[in-house]
Every structure is written in C-alpha cells, then in structure tokens.
C-alpha cells in the first residue's frame, strides 16, 4: 500500500534528476566555439616546490631595470579615455572652488572679496546664541571657565569663489586633464574608423608633449609583442598569472589604509578599475565601479581609490612586463573584512 507513493516518488525523483543532468549537459553545449586558428596557450606543469620557487622569486624581484619603450606602446595603444571621476557630479561648492583660477590675482574682482556672506552674517546675535547650552560658572578654583558651547555657525559653504570677470591669462604649460578628456572624447568616434582620422599630433599637442614619429618607430627587439587582446600576444602561464595577482594583492595591501572600523549593515567591497601604462604608471584616474549607496561606507570607497593612487607607479617586476596585455587593466576589490581581525 505504501509502495505506491514511494515508487512514484522514485520515478519523479529520477525524472527530475535526469532532467537536471540533461539541462546541465545541454546548457553548456552552446559555449562559444574556439577560433579555427587559435593560438597556442602555454601551459606549465609545475610541482609544488617549483611553484614555491616562483612565489619566492616574486618577493625578491628586482625593480624594473629598463622601462620598455613607451612611445611605441603609446602609439600602438592610444591612452584609454580617462575614466570618469569618482563622484560623478562634484558638489556645487567644490565646483565653485574649482572655478576659481589657481591662485587668483592679488587684487580680486570687485565682488565681495571675502564671500560666504549668508553664513558669516549670523554673528549679529552671537552672544545670545552661544551662551545658553553650557553656562558653567567654574566651581571653586577658577582656572579657565568651562568653554561655552561653540556652534558651527554655518557650513562654511566654500565661499563663493571669487569669479574673475575675465579669465586670467592662460597658462599654457598647465596640464588640463579635463580638456584632454574632452578632446579624447571627441576623438573617440574617429577611433572607430580605421585609424585614418586618428590624429595623434592633436592629442600630443594637448598633452603638451611632443610625440615625434609616433607609429613609425619600430618595436624594439627586447619589447614584448603587445598585440590586441584577441590576437597573438604573449600569454602568461596560469601559475605566473596567479603569481602576478598575488603580487598585485600584496602591493595594494601595503598601500591601503582602510578606515578603522566598518559601519553596520552589509559589508561593502569597493571595486576600483585600474588602467596601466606598460611601465606600471596609471594610464588614467582609477574608477570606482560601485559607489556605496550608504554614505557611511564612503570613507571606505575613498580609501580604496587613495590606495591605488598611493601605489602609483607600480614597480612591476620584470617577469611580468612582457605580458602587459594581461595586466593593462585590473579590477581591484578592496575588502575590509579582516580589518578587525
């Protein structure tokens, strides 16, 4: 009597499991096909001791002796457009401060020389304002009377930066990342077209450097082949690749000072996109991929970006230099988990 349900259960179970297996097998079927002319992938078979030796080698690695020929790379791979600045829209007050030219002329324009008028204004009734909270006549020995409370008068809205009527004389030598970014932005569409409209000299002019004979220079023999990611670039063996990641982890750990404690709630792990030049310098501002929704985690996010900047330039050990394509961009995850032990 009780056989029926069990049997049917067994059948149902078998059918379901069969279905699951079929799903798993078939589900993997439409995996992308390999290219016909696939390049060979280097594979190393190493013993545990060999692997340890590799790791040891990382730690004692000599700093880069000779930087690879940069111009070549620069020509081959135009610098990626600078990643968007961390806070997408800088607060207005900051903007204001930005707007002001560097050290403004000693004689600023007529407008209120020392702004922050609305904030600074309150003082009319200062004493009354400040007195009540902590009166505090000192006990017997009258040393220094307990401090009357101090109220932040105002959020010192970064004083409406004196806006110069006429912009001060240009300082051509000053590097202006915004403009470069804009130009690169403009140049982007052209980039899509077959290299024709790609005007290196324009960018070079903007950057303020002279890129003589950009692409004509041949790749030096010592320099590794650095083809496009999909083509025949040198590939690291899995163990070397793991060692590189371990080295990067150590490097960023030594540059990172996370805030002392973690806010309550779900843990936030900042992800920072980092782009390098072949010599280990940053090729653009690090980009925070996942700004925290909870402002309490903001200092953590900022500490991650600070770590990337502090580690710039990275002294990439020579053994990784030939494989630039594989570390040209990295996403670094900064996990505060073990900060508290």
């Amino acid at each position, binding site marked *: 009597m009780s056989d029926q349900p069990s049997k049917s259960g067994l059948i149902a179970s078998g059918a379901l499991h069969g279905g699951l297996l079929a799903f798993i097998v078939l589900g993997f079927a439409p995996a992308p096909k390999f290219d016909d002319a696939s390049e060979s992938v280097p594979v190393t078979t190493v013993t545990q001791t060999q692997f340890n030796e590799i790791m040891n080698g990382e730690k004692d690695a000599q700093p880069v002796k000779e930087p690879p020929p940069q111009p070549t790379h620069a020509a081959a791979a135009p610098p990626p457009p600078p990643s968007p600045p961390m806070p997408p829209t800088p607060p207005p007050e900051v903007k204001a401060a930005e707007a002001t030219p560097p050290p403004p002329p000693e004689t600023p324009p007529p407008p209120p020389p020392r702004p922050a008028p609305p904030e600074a204004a309150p003082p009319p009734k200062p004493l009354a304002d400040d007195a009540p909270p902590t009166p505090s006549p000192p006990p017997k020995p009258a040393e220094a009377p*307990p401090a009357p409370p*101090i109220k932040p008068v105002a959020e010192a809205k970064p004083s409406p930066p004196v806006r110069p009527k006429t912009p001060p004389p240009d300082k051509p030598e000053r590097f202006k990342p915004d403009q470069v970014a804009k130009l690169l932005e403009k140049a982007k569409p052209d980039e899509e077209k077959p290299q024709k409209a790609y005007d290196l000299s324009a960018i070079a002019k903007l950057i303020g450097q002279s890129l003589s004979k950009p692409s004509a220079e041949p790749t030096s023999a010592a320099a590794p082949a650095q083809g496009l990611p999909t083509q025949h670039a040198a590939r690291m063996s899995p163990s070397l690749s793991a060692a590189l990641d371990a080295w990067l982890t150590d490097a960023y750990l030594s540059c990172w000072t996370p805030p002392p404690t973690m806010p309550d709630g779900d843990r936030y792990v900042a992800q920072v996109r980092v782009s390098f030049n072949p010599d280990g310098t940053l090729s653009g501002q690090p980009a925070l991929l996942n700004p925290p929704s909870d402002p309490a985690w*903001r200092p953590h996010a*900022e500490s991650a970006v600070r770590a990337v900047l502090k580690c710039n330039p990275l002294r990439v050990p020579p053994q990784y230099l030939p494989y630039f394509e594989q570390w040209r961009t990295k*996403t670094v995850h900064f996990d505060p988990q073990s900060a508290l*032990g």
Partner: protein
Amino acid sequence: MRRRRLAVCERESSNNINSKQRDRAVMMIDKAFLRLAAALFAVGLATSAQAAGDVYVHAGANFTPVTIAVTPFAGDETGTKLGAVLVNDFAHSIFLTPLNPTSFPENITNPDVRPNIDAWKTVNAQFVLTGRVSSAGGRISAQFRLWDTATGEQVAGQQYTTDLANGRRVAHLIADATFSRITGEKGFFDSRVVFVDETGSKEKRRKRLAVMDMDGANVRYLTTGEKLAVTPQFSPSAQQVAFMWFGEADPKVTLLNLENGQRQVAGNFPGMTFAPRFSPDGQRIVMSLSEGSAAHLYTMDIASHTTTRLTDGSGIDTSPCYSPDGSQIVFESDRGGTQQIYVMSASGGPATRISFGDGRYSTPVWSPRGDLIAFTRQKDGQFGIGVMKPDGSGERIITEGYHNEGPTFSPNGLFLMFFRDPGGESGAKIYMADIFGHGEFVVPTPDYASDPSWGPLMK
C-alpha cells in the same frame, strides 16, 4: 486474534524495513545528485569569482596612517595657535599623521582656492587642510576647508564663531570634523577627562580630582586635596562626575556637577560605597556597597535617591559598568574564586562569566560603541590592558607591563586611556592608545596622574 495482530505487526515491520531500505537508497541517490549539483555550482562560482583581471585585497594587519598637511591658517596670529593645536591633535590621532611643514610644496595664500594638488601629491599629502581665522571684539571666527588630493576636490568645510577664550575648542572641533570626514568615525578631540592629580612624595601623596582637555591642556582642579578623592567617573551624557570621597566616617560615593560645583552624596548606606559609574542616560549610578566581607552592586536613581540591590552572595562584586544601551552591566567578581569579569542584566539576576584567559581580570569598561569591553588583566606580575567582545571572545591585549590599570574609552570607542605606574619613587602617568594597538603615547599632565575617566563630547 493476538497472533493475527502479531502477524500484522510483523508484516508492517517487514514493510517498514523494505520501505526504509528504499528510502535510504533514494536518499543516497538524492545525496549523490545533490553533491554533484553542489560541485557543479561551486565550479561555476569559482569560475565567476576568478574573473579575469580581478584582484582581491583583504584588509590586513599592516597599518599606515593617512597623511594630512595642515597649512598655516590665514588671518591674524590666532591662526598660528589654532594650527599648533590642530597639528598636535592629528599627531596624537594615530589614524592620521600630519606632514612636516618643511616639506610643504607651496605657501597657501588664499585658503579658499584649491591648492596645487599635483604638488601636494608629490610630497605624499593625501589631504590638505586650509583655513583662515579672524578675531575681533573678543570673538574668534575660524573656517577650514579639507581637500582630498586623490580627487582634487574639497570634501569638507565649516565655519565656527565663538569667544576668543575658546580658541582651542575651535581647533578641536575642526580636528573632529576632519577626523570624521576622513575615517568615517565620530570625533573625540572636543572632550574632557577627569583624573586624579598626584603630587608630593610617595609617602605623603596629595591626591586631587582634576579635569583637563583630552590633549592635557586646560587642567582645572576640582578638590583641594585635603581629603582623599579617588576613582572619578565622568557621566557619559552630562558634565557631571561621580567619585569616592573620603570625607567623614566611611568613604562615600559623591556626585559633583562640573558646571555649578554642587556636590551630593549618593545614597544613604550604612557601609562604604565605592566604584561608582553612571548609566548611559546619566540618570542613575551603579556602585558597590561593602557588607561585611562581601560587596554587592546597587543602583541609585539620582533624582529620587531610590536604590535597588542587584547582586548578593558572599563574593566581592565591584567595578560595574553599563552597556551603552543600558540593558546590561559588566562587573568584576571573585565569586568563582578569582577576580573575573561577569555580565548580567541591568536589573540584576544571574550573571555570566566572560573572562576565561589566564590571570585575573578586573576594571571592565563597556565601549560606547557597544562592541568591546576593556579590562585590566593581571598575570605573572604583569598588568595588561586589553579588550574583548561582550561575549568574552576575541580577547586581545593592547599593552602589558608594570603596572597598567584602569582603562577608559574615548567617546567614539576607538581609543583608550589608562594609567601606568612604573613603581619606585615615581608615580603614575596617563597613557592613550587605540583599541587596535597601533600606537600609544603619554598624555601630558602637570604632575603624576591616575584614574582617568573620559567624558562625552562637549556640546
């Protein structure tokens, strides 16, 4: 009938066995499938976690403070004093470190304009603080701007106005705002500490209650020293202090209002009362009352003077301290044979021992954050200051030697002060350390000093 019932039972039992075997077989198959599925799932996860180009950094034990350049404040000469207080604050903040002004790449002439970020980066300044001060008519007005060199943007700014006499407090407020913005933690510079000031020879030591700014400035004496006053405790919510006062007859727990100087004895008990501590709302105090060879914990409502007994037994229960939410009390007791730390409900009842390391544990203090309990551990003639979680786990010793005692938390729960008495003819000094043990330094006091109790942020 009986046989038939037996037979039925047998059949049922054999049926049971069959069905059990079948069930077991099905379960085994299920488990096998589950394992297979789990393995496939794990492989999938691992593959996705090892996404190419991703590097995973977990915060480690290494620690480097964040660098900040405190540029001279523009304005009159009060700016120089204010800047000095600021630099001193940061130098003792452990998590921030002020840069040496000799390395500054530029003179800030206009603090309202963005500094030359690239130049500051070259000297490894992660933040730059600019500001201006003006004083007139007995008032001081100060404003600051904090610049993050990573983004080149201003990340904080504020203006304060107050009496000229409070210039140091303005500096502490600026330091707090800066510390908070960079670390995400609450500030702690604008706070005060009560302690026992000790002068005179070892045999004839004069002990006075005193209060100072947390950086050791503005020391003010609260008692004359004719009568002994010890173990002061700052209220966590008001400018009020409780201490043990050796006035007439038995020593009594006494309350002192720092603002108007009023004193009152806490409760009317027949024996000696000691080890007072305020509740988080400042409305009650909890303390020990000696009863014969034992001591028990009592609470007293400050307004109504009604008292409630919390513990009993033949042990000595002392050093009580409320959890920040007021629901629990941690205290030390020798009820188990040696001094150990226990936690119980704030209304009394059974207590749970939480200290199980080697040695004797005493003077427990609950962090204002609620996450840690600090203590003194005595072991092999050494006195260590340490912290543990409220359940007793995660114990770590922050400093150890002869003779450390009496930890007290900063209002943000990130730092501890305690006193260290090296013995001999010299006396105790107050030290400050962070709860992770990254750093430690002495807090300057005019003479020897002990029994610090850190008060709340000023209002």
